[in-house]
Each structure stands twice: as C-alpha cells, then as structure tokens.
C-alpha cells in the first residue's frame, strides 16, 4: 500500500511538472510577439506603476472596453474603437480638427478644382514616418492607390471606389482625380499615409506620421504606444500610453479606483459618483443618432401613420431624464448636432410627445387596439438596452405592446442589419467621416446598407442631385431636404445623440472633444 501511495505521488508530481513545463515552454513565443516591432525595454511598461509614478514619467493608462481590430491597418478599420485610437498614429493628407473642419496634415496645403473632381496637394516639408524616414510623394501615391484598390482588388475604403487616379507630377505634389464631382471627398482623404510597399501580410501595423507610434501589442491585454519625437505638430504631453483592455464594466470601475487606470471614455453617468475626488468628468456627445429604427417594409410599420404614432408616443426627454440625468441632445432626424451647417434643430420638435395624437393616428390606421412590436437590441450596448426598457413602458401608454429581444452583437449585425429580419431595433448610427453623405446615403432605396428598407422616390432623386452638386450652399440645402424627408415620413423614431462621459484622473488635463468618435491623446498632459 505504501508503494502505491508513492507511485501515486510520483504520477501527480510528474503531471504537474509536465503541465508547468509545457506551459513555460510556450512562453518564449509570447515574448517574441510582445516585443515585436518595439525598441522599448520592458521597464517602459506602465503596468506596475502607481498614478504618481506615472505622472512623473508622463505616462498614462487608458482603459478601453474591447480590443482593437486585428490588423491595426489604417485602411481597414472595422470598429469605432479602433478609429478612436488610430487617429493618434496615422494622418491623412488632411485630418479632422476638433471644430469639425479639415486641416492640412501630411499635405501642407491643398486646392480643390471648381469642378470638384480634382484635388491637388503639396507635401509638407520635412514630414517623417515614425522610423525617421522622410515621407515622399511615392508613399502618398502608394497609400491612396492601396486604399482605392487601383493596383488590383477592391477598394479597401469604400469611399475610395470613386478614385480614378492618383499621380505625382513632381516630388512635392500629389493630384487625386475622382470619377464624378464630389465636394465631400476631401473628408475621405483623412485616410492614413503609410510607407510604400506595406501590405499587411505579417499582421504588424505600418508606420504612420501621427503624434504617437506603435510599441507593442498583446491581444486581449493591451496596446502600448509612445510619443513620436519627430512629429511635425505640437509635441504630445504624454511620453507613453498603455491602452488596457477591460471588458467588464465593474472591473473597469475598480481598476480606476485602485489606481491601475487613469482615463476611460464612454463611462456611465452613475459611475462618476462612485469615482470620487480622484477623477473628474468631461461630458461631450457620442456623435451618433440613437433611434428606434423601424423596418419600413414590415406591416404595420409600412404605414406612415403608424410610424408617426410611434414618434408621438415616445418621450425623448423622459428617456434622457431617467438614464442620463437629463443630458443628451434630442433628435428628430438622422443628422446629429456636430454636423453644424447640415443640422436642423427645428426637426427635433416636429413630433411632440402626444399620446392622444398617437392613439388617434393608430385609430386612423385601423389599429385602435394597438399592436405588438418587437424591439431587437444588441445586448452589449447598455445605453440602447436601457433606452429600450423606457421606450417599452412609454409605448404601453398608446396601446402598443412592445417587447425587447436582446441579441449578441454579431447576431444583430447578421440577422437585423444585414438580412433585415427584424421589426424594430434601438441602436446608434454614426459616421465614419464628417460628411452628410455618410449619414444619409443609407436611406437610398437600393443601397446595400439601407437596413430600414426605406423607399421614397423623392429621397432617391434629391440624393442623386445632392452628391452631384458642386456648389456647397446648394448641396447643403439638398442634404437638409433629405433630412426633412426622413422626419416627415417618420422613417424612424429618433431619440437622441447620447451624452458621453469621460472619466479623467485629477491632474491630467487637455481633453479635447471632437465631433467624431475620436480621443485626441496628443492633447492630454499632466498639469503640474
């Protein structure tokens, strides 16, 4: 029996050793991966420092709720979260400023032809990539041709399908020609300029010209970026930034309180109360259109009066009062306030909260007894799930029996958004570029991403006119007409542009809100 016991112990010990050895055997691979493309020694990792130690070294840890895209390729950005970060690493010929205008970046100046189909850029003198190499017109031509798929394949950036040619007549000038006049195309030229020859095959992000450079990445753990000392613009305040992935919101909150994280965007309003004096909040808008999007092809929502009834039956102010202490911007159409000249504030009041009117409209449509309405919501977006809960109780008042169906995001994307197998859904729709087109094109009848099945002959006609218009004032008027049609037709039940809270550790300043989903990390600095 003793012998057996010894054998048993031996086997267990062997098992443990094999297990542990096997694990540490895989370790070398990880180190390689983590240090790939980096010159920073391990001690530059911010992980085990205290907030004070970080402050003395100009380092900051920013918490993000999900990992960035796999590729970190500026021409293939899939998620808003990736755009938000890569804004700091890559620059286009022009880049968005925080007032919503485009300012020169890799180009120092540009001209747009009167016909709005030729864009001429002068390369900025002395601008360098993160490796220190000077940017040439060859890099610019390569980058834009790659984004446009001019060397074979499809356009990597959909808007670039419009590009006809990219040429460099001399070593300081780049000329971009497009197939049809398009005033707004300039906004697409914010696409990152990368070194000639980069093909993304190795899964390593390319160099850029932005204020920060890539250091290392560990999937589902962090991304580390470092100040680029050769940057042409203002020197960033932070020397090193760790973007730490924390999926669970409770954990994010505790990590901030513990001192592990200094900055987190898109936090809940009630968090700020729990964070205490160590943090302060900046509030801005999320720059999206949150709405109860309606499948216009499904009865009874194919009846305009029913859709109008829903608009009168939802109390936007109450939603904001309950969920965000009254903050947010109530909307009446598919353009949010940051769009400035395109935004029509009056449309917000087009449908007032009026349950009697709503019920009268329903009765007109032969639905005096109300109807059942299923609202699909992607479960990972708390603001939309919460809004849905309030909407359900509001619609009860007008006799509409609404129910919530929570689905995983990928299911939402496939079933609801792509296959349009849904009745209604609450989500936020945003814009990749600051163009009215980015917001309004999706409602053209035969558009592949017209997920609400909106069909309106006038809309299609005006849209075609708008994108072909070369006079800015006239174009703006046409876009405003489109916006108004969406409201008149009650295409969707528009709710709000959500208030976005950013929690920042006291002692860190410089946060700049943008009209796009962006964090300008170069502006952040310690205020001593």
């Amino acid at each position: 029996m003793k012998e057996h016991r010894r054998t048993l112990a031996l086997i267990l010990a062997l098992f443990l050793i094999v297990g542990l050895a096997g694990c540490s055997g895989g370790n070398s691979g990880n180190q390689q991966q983590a240090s790939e493309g980096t010159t920073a020694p391990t001690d530059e990792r911010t992980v085990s420092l205290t907030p004070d130690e970080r402050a003395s070294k100009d380092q900051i840890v920013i918490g993000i709720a999900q990992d960035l895209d796999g590729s970190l390729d500026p021409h293939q950005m899939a998620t808003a979260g990736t755009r938000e970060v890569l804004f700091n690493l890559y620059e286009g010929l022009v880049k968005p400023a925080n007032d919503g205008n485009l300012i020169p970046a890799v180009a120092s100046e540009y001209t747009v032809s009167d016909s709005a189909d030729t864009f001429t850029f002068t390369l900025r003198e002395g601008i360098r990539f993160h490796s220190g190499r000077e940017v040439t017109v060859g890099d610019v031509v390569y980058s834009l041709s790659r984004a446009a798929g001019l060397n074979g394949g499809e356009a990597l950036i959909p808007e670039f399908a419009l590009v006809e040619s990219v040429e460099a007549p001399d070593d300081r000038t780049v000329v971009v020609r497009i197939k049809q006049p398009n005033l707004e195309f300039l906004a697409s030229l914010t696409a990152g300029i990368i070194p000639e020859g980069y093909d993304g095959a190795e899964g390593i992000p390319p160099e850029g010209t932005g204020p920060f450079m890539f250091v290392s990445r560990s999937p589902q753990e962090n991304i580390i970026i470092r100040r680029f000392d050769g940057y042409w613009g203002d020197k960033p305040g932070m020397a090193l930034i760790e973007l730490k992935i924390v999926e669970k919101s409770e954990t994010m909150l505790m990590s901030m309180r513990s001192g592990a994280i200094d900055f987190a965007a898109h936090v809940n309003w009630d968090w700020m109360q729990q964070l205490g004096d160590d943090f302060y909040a900046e509030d801005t808008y999320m720059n999206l259109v949150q709405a109860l999007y309606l499948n216009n092809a499904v009865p009874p929502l194919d009846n305009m009066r029913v859709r109008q009834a829903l608009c009168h039956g939802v109390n936007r102010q109450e939603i904001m009062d309950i969920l965000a202490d009254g903050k947010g911007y109530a909307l009446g159409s598919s353009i949010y306030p940051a769009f400035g000249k395109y935004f029509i504030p009056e449309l917000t009041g087009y449908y007032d909260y009026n349950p009697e009117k709503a019920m009268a409209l329903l009765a007109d449509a032969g639905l005096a007894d109300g109807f059942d309405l299923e609202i699909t919501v992607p479960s990972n977006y708390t603001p939309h799930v919460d809004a849905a809960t309030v909407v359900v109780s509001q619609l009860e008042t007008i006799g509409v029996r609404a129910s919530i169906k929570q689905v995983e995001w990928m299911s939402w994307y496939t079933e609801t958004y792509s296959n349009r197998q849904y009745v209604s859904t609450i989500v936020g729709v945003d814009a990749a570029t600051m163009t009215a087109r980015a917001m309004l094109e999706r409602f053209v009848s035969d558009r592949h991403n017209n997920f609400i099945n909106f069909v309106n002959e006038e809309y299609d006609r005006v849209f075609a006119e708008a994108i072909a218009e070369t006079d800015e004032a006239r174009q703006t008027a046409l876009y405003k007409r489109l916006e108004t049609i969406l409201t008149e037709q009650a295409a969707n039940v528009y709710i709000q542009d959500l208030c976005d809270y950013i929690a920042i550790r006291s002692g860190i300043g410089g946060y700049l809100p943008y009209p796009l989903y962006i964090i300008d990390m170069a502006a952040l600095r310690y205020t001593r």
Partner: protein
Amino acid sequence: MRTIVKKTMAMMATLLAISILAFLAFQILPGDPTVAILGMNTSPERVAELRDTLGLNDPPPVRYGRWLSRFVTGDMGRSYSMNRPVAEQLAGKVQVTATLSAIAFVMVVLLSVPSGIFLARNEGGKADRVFLVLNQLLMSTPSVLIGLIFTYLFGLLLRVFTPGQFVHLSQNAGAYYAQMFFPALAIALPRSAMTIKLLRGSIASQMRQDYVRTAYSRGNSRAGALRRHVFRNAILPVVTFLALTMADIVAGSIIVEQVFVIPGIGRLLLSSISARDFPVVQAIIMMVAVLVVFVNYLADMINQLIDPRIRLG
C-alpha cells in the same frame, strides 16, 4: 498493451467528435468573421473578396477537412481577425491560464481533503453543522461574485493587491505567482465546497460498512479505522470528481480572468467567439478537450492504483 491501444482509440474518437460538434456549432451561429475584420462601413464587394481569401465560400465538409488535416500535423492555422498563427497567439495565454488553473486545483485539493476528513470524523458535531452551512453557502456562490468581493475587499479596501494590474512572468516572477492567489481562490472556493461535501458523504457512508465494524472489533480507534481502511475506499469517487473539477476550473478561469483582468485564454476565447474567429476557438476547445480527456484517463489510472480490483478496459 491492448487496453492502452483501445483507450487511446477511444480518446481519439472523443476528440474527433468534439471537434465536429464545435465546427457544427459555428455553422449554426449567425455571423461571419468578415464582419469583425471589415466592420459595418464596408462594401459588399470587399466582403465577397475577403470571404474568398479566407476560404469561407467552400462547403462546410471541405472547410472542416482542411482544418482537420492541418490540425493533426500540428498546424493550428491562422486567426482570421488577427491574421497571425493561432499557436503564436495562444502561447503566452496558455501559460497564464495553466498557472491560474494549476494553483486553483492545488487549492481545491489542499482545502477539501483535510476538511472533508475532519468533518467526517466529527460527523454530526457542532463544527460539522456550522461548517456544512458555510459550505452550502460557498457552493452556491459563483466565482464571479467571489472575485468581485475579493477585488473590493482586498483590492480597494485593504490594498493587498491592485485590481486591474497584471505582472508578466518575465517582469517579476514573485509578483506573477502572488497575483494569482485571489483569482485562484475565487475559482477554488465553490469547487472545494463541493469536493468537501462529496468526500464527507463518501467517508460517512464507508464508515457504516461492515468492514469498518470489523476493524473496530480488531481494536482500531475511529481515527485508525479511517486512516487504515476507510480513506482508500472513500477517496475513489473523489478522484473521479477532481478530474471533472479540472475541467470546471478551466471553465471558471474564463470568467474570473475578466474580473481580475488576467490575460489568459478565457478572454481570448470569448472575444474569438464574438469575432467568429473559428481557428482560434477550435484550437482552444481542442486544448481543453485534450486536457479533460487526459485527466479523466489519469483519474482512472489513479483509481486503479488505489484499488487494484478496478481494472482498466
């Protein structure tokens, strides 16, 4: 020899069945890896092009066959969304999860075996009754909750550790193992409680057997009978149960990794499922499956060593 061959064949068949089930599950799930790669702001032409590049347009049996033929040669393929070899992506994560699981497993054994014996010896006593209530409470508390309580209590109030920070083995080995303590304990507590309950029950039922009365009649004390005769019989179901626990611990670590911000395979698995990154998910499932099948096999062997009457076959 024949039993080993038979056993190995059975293990292979199990693993094959698991891989087919995992593959089928992915066919049923709505969604497409191209979405995670290209996002919403893309053109249908790009999606079609990428689907073609990734080989997603081939019929399912062809795709499964392609995956299998590479997997058996040790090639786990490339992650769709990261565009990197899966093996490279898993390497560092496996180490972390394995360390966490191993510590949690040791904790389960260290906590449950002595406590189980102690309780069985004092069956019906005051300590036993108090312990049982506590045990029942622990058994029904999920690891996530224990983890959150630990983070709040030991992290924020007592400042024993810093929630949200993770130290790599290469940075500081001592800190690396130390930081695993609370996460491992959060995983181990509910499992220990179950093991204690099982062991206590198992010992108690053995104590009522005839051979124990015989042992008493030969002059053994209660402790002596327990040590010399009962324990070996009572431990058999516990060994089998511990083997199952191993699988459960790995599953538990998936959730606990999120609470403690530990970069292990659990978080990778969850994000890979939502990105429909099939090669990564399949690789993780197969690793866990191999572990579970192997541990079960090991448990059979250990049981046979303890009690030679049990024959492998």
